[in-house]
């Protein structure tokens, strides 16, 4: 459904679904043990080789320039099985989009063009905080014509596995923050251990401490919140696609289990209360798929008002995913709560993903603010 009738998207849909089934599903439980188990580097590398990390990046910048719809198709399929990889792809795409929103294509190109590995290509970013929400910025000071960053940036996703990071920092001469690109292998950078978190365990977030680290300013000083807003508009469709994928995965597992589990002398799917729960789940999945397909298309075609539609749909789908994955566990009863099945991880991941791009209440308020303008 998400791919629609577009031939290229349909091919991508098939390929990414196959990849998720073969590469992600079998190792889901083990991969989720990170950092108590190794990171699934081989799988990340495979996804990189398949150019899933290049999807939204324009061809001129060494990407495949497929647009938001293609990114959504991939994220949807991947998150059906394991959204940690989805989180990494999302973060990288968001970091790239921040560059583009700031008109800093040349800086981005300097990263992507010479990159010969996922480590060099990947850009970390604190994608869970909208700079207009909470203060999570370093301090930028100008010295000899260049900016040096000091201070702390919390919850930077992929900060321990990427070569570069985009981080917000405050400058003396502007009220709003600015975004900077820095090399995490530079002197003065300290990266914390992966932060134990609710979900997306194999998409680690870290706190970064900086001590006079050289960096490149993206766009104009003080324009960070605007760039973030622009990026968030497009990327909210991708976040919605992730949630929709989780929902689909949860429904699939619930359907499968309910056909095989017997209680009260019949398959539990034949108790009408379970059937009703599954029906509610299906309504949510279908609606979410429909919305993701439509908004991603709207964004790629620059339809009027696309940003509001995308942000509203994302809020709704993410909320829906949290409710649905609760029922996804419930249909399985006790085993749904165990690591042996995928439902518990989907439940955690759905809630985790809801926090992408900022706090839920402020995302809603910003939507209505936009309508008042």
């Amino acid at each position, binding site marked *: 459904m998400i791919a629609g009738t577009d031939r290229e998207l349909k091919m991508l849909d098939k390929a990414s679904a196959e990849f998720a089934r073969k590469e992600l599903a079998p190792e889901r439980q083990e991969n989720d043990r990170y950092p108590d188990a190794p990171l699934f580097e081989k799988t990340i590398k495979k996804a990189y080789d398949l150019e899933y990390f290049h999807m939204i990046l324009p061809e001129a910048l060494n990407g495949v320039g497929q647009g938001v719809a293609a990114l959504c198709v991939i994220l949807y399929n991947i998150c059906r099985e394991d959204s940690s990889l989805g989180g990494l792809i999302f973060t990288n795409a968001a970091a790239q989009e921040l560059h583009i929103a700031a008109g800093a294509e040349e800086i981005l190109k300097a990263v992507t063009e010479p990159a010969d590995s996922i480590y060099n290509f990947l850009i970390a970013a604190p994608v869970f905080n909208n700079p207009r929400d909470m203060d999570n910025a370093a301090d930028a000071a100008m010295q000899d014509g260049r900016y040096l960053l000091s201070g702390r940036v919390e*919850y930077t996703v992929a900060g321990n596995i990427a070569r570069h990071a985009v981080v917000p920092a405050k400058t003396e001469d502007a009220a709003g923050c600015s975004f900077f690109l820095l090399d995490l292998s530079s002197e003065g950078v300290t990266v914390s251990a992966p932060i134990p*978190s609710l979900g997306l365990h194999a998409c680690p977030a870290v706190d970064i401490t900086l001590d006079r680290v050289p960096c490149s300013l993206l766009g104009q000083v003080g324009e960070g919140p605007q760039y973030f807003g622009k990026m968030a508009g497009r990327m909210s469709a991708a976040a919605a696609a992730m949630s929709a994928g989780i929902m689909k995965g949860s429904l699939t597992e619930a359907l499968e289990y309910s056909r095989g589990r017997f*209680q009260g002398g019949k398959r539990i799917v034949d108790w009408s209360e379970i059937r009703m729960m599954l029906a509610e789940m299906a309504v949510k999945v279908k609606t979410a798929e429909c919305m993701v397909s439509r908004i991603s298309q709207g964004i790629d075609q620059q339809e009027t008002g696309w940003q509001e539609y995308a942000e509203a749909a994302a809020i709704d789908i993410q909320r829906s995913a949290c409710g649905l994955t609760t029922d996804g566990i419930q249909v399985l*009863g006790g085993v749904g709560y165990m690591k042996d099945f995928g439902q518990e991880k989907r439940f955690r991941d759905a809630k985790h993903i809801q926090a992408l791009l900022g706090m839920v209440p*402020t995302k809603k308020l910003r939507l209505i603010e936009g309508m008042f303008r």
Partner: protein
Amino acid sequence: MISRKEVKAYSAMPPVFEDITCGLASAPKLPKPMVKETRRVIALARKFNKEVVRPYALELDSKLQASPDYIPWDFVEQANEWGLYTGWIPKIFGGKGWNMPSLAYFIEEIASECLAMANLVGVHYLGVSTLTSTGNVRLINQICRQVAAGEKTHTPCLVSLATTEPGAGTDAEEIDLMDKGTMTCTAERVPGGYKLNGTKVFISNGHLSTWHMVIAYSDTSKPSENTVVLAVKTGDKGFSFGRKEQKMGQKGCPASELIFKDCFVPDEYVCFSPEQIRSLKRTVRETGMQMIDYVVSTTRAGVGAFGTGAARGAYNEAKKFAAETEVGGKRLINHEWAQCMLAEMLKNVMTARLTYVEANSANGLYGAFRDLQRKPMFYYYRLMPAKFFDKMVSPMLEKAFMTKTFRRVQLDGQTDEEIHRTSGWASLSKVAATDLGIRNCHMALELMGQHGLRRSYRVEKMLRDAKLLQIYEGTNQLNRLNIFKCMIAGDCPQAVIFDE
């Protein structure tokens, strides 16, 4: 204006007066010292939280994340030192005899800091109340006194309940489903006792418990009429532990597999069997359901307290965060929308609490707490020294007539309406409070943004922990059906349940 006859008739119209006034009717009957005692219990819980639970909750969770096989003996030993495993065992059986409704308040307090640790304490009383519900006074006395001895000797002696089987979870909770399902845990009658075979799964505190109340069936083609409750001790021949589950939350509280292979249980450890209850006024099948209801009327209200604790913990953390954090350049707590969110969360806490309090009022008037809360009994237990019970009363409890009398009073003394009222209210509390617990965890996480995702901010653990509450003690779906059965079906003679 209105005649006596009319009052009677109108009160009997749905909702029946007694169904909606449990708290009101129970208040004047409560012995006064219960309030003071409950205050002490809550204070004790808060002290225990401050000294033991809060400092260790995240560490225990992380420990189990890294080493899933870890068994939290360290916590159990501390809880044992604090007297928490005998607190709610009646004095007549060697316990401290704190009033039963205070257990729910206690659980709410602990659960507001850590649901796993609340479970490490609370689930023991699930085992104890199952034992008590069998009415087998000799065994209740014997096992409860071992729990008390374990406290004195610093060797915790916990009790678990083993009902769930790999093929029967919901089915094991409801007589009407049992016979249609596939129960496989068999208790075969052999000379001098029963031979137990089968597997039980997801047994909370399994690895930590000394005694296990095992529900088995002497004829699996008609389990509803052939249910036996056996007391099996860890170490008994033919009994072993299988896997320890890897769960999403409540990691600190083990969920264990119990495996029985030709495990011989002598007659003296048969808590309950059909032969023992034939002289009661209800049929074996009806008594079986009554016993289930007797247990779950208290324990599901207890899960209501867990849910309230979850709702409260999430609210507390969100409130603290909102007071300390700036959002959009101003304190979060000073955004009007955040104030309303916090108010909504507090409303959820208060509403959840009211449900378990009401359910326990019903238990005090019509169910498991009734005899303990009757004023003469209450004061008798309270004023007589423990030694009197140990020396004078305890030997009497060995006599068979005591069990007979106890069962008559306990089981025959309860009307069908009373069974429905207590069981219905308990299910209602379980469903309402656990759903509200989950709701508040979601709201807290939404309010806290990226901070909420971090373990160190505690709420993500609360959400993981709270989800279990909607599953165990019967899924919330089964509990909704029980609400229908107990509180709605009576109004509609056409209604049939578990038969579609």
